[in-house]
């Protein structure tokens, strides 16, 4: 699975990288950077799903 950020929607709240530093870090200008290209590990998938849930911009999704 791949984590995708919609940069149009993202308003850089920071919720993903502060709550889930296992998967995200703050990148240039405040947009999130994804640390793991292909997410397979169950623990990482849990972080991805929780990040999707807490994102106030609804800018994160998981794709095949």
């Amino acid at each position, binding site marked *: 699975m791949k984590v995708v950020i919609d940069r149009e929607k993202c308003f*850089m709240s*920071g919720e993903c990288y*502060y709550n889930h530093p296992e998967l995200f870090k*703050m990148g240039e200008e*405040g947009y999130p950077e994804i640390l793991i290209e292909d997410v397979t590990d169950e623990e990482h998938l849990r972080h991805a799903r929780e990040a999707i849930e*807490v994102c106030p911009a609804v800018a994160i999704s998981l794709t095949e």
Partner: protein
Amino acid sequence: MAEAAAPSDERGGRDLDPRVFDSPEFQRDPFPIYKALRDHHPVYHDRFHNRWILSRYWDVDGAFQDNESFDRAMYKPDGPYKFGTNHVFGPNILEYGNSDEHRRLRNIVAGQFVGQKLNDFLPMIDQISHEVIDRFIDDGEVEIVSQFSSQVPIRVISNMLGLPREDENTFVGWYQDLIAGLGFGGEYFARGLKARNDMWDYIDPMIEERSKNPGEDLLSRICVAELNGSRMTPEEIKGFVALLLAAGGDTTDKAIANMWYHLMYTRPDQYPDVRDNPNLWENVFTEMMRYDPVVHAQFRFTTREVQIHDKVIPERAGVILYLGAGNRDERAFNDPDTFDIHREDLHMRRENRSGRYKDGKNGHLGFGIGQHFCMGYAMARQESAIACRMLAERVKNIRPKFTEHDGVTAPNIDSGGFRAPSELWLEFDR
């Protein structure tokens, strides 16, 4: 520049006597000292209090962002210190550092203070504001701190927790003692502990009841939340409640008083703008949080040696992040010592935890940044704006009762003492 300052040091900057941080002058007006720190001592080693001080906007921001080098916790989670034993709230989230545990605890309640959950509570904030205003509206005058600002937020948070409305006056008393117990030792700490114990006796049966039959309220949510597969202990639940009552009440209380102070005394010329366009109350809130926020200092401990500019801060050093100083940094804001609700170089809308905005403007540092960013930020903003707007709408010709005012002050700023006017008398017509 402070009177206490000596002529100069070998680097050409002014020397700074660290005893100035304990002076009443600094509590009343810290801004000249902040400027001296930013200009001449951006990484100041205060040998007298055994701590380091950062004061420039981007240095404070950088430390807030750098969890690898700066931790909030005084103690290690796996060390001999038993969390909660030396804190007036009991065990609570403020004692945890950058740990997973902190993140999990925070997430139990953080979602309750933003978005739709918050929107659902806005009508209740309206109602409580009106009830509080009703009590003094016929008097033609009000002492904002005791009659208004300290009344609204505590009633809102106790409502969110689902505590009985008829007991609100009792909570107000407890919370005032809890807050005093935070910043001071001695009798204040003792009174804070007594308030805590009284509150715990009161709340024990409620915790038992709501753990069995949870409702929609915040207390129920905390009671049934699971961490690593198990619920929190009653002690941990009560620590959480004490924190929410105090942090959710006192900070917003002081924000409201500060907003009125600045519109009545600092920029009375801008009050008509706000009266005629109530949406500007959010600008008043934002500019207050920059110009002279409720909280000026956050404390961190280094987890390793940190180099900033030409200085090295050693490992396990205490570091003060003066966000009140960063907010007045000429490197981040034009004409920083002017209070202006129409300021164009400040991000005026809702804050981001990252401190970064799509409009490219700098935000205020008043809620902190990053891992420990205020989780009640959205609620504090809404609640302050609503309460202020309600009062403004129900009065005419509101004005200071006295021409002179002592201004905004802090009883003890270094221990997290919150800044606000101690009294604020206003007169109005109906």
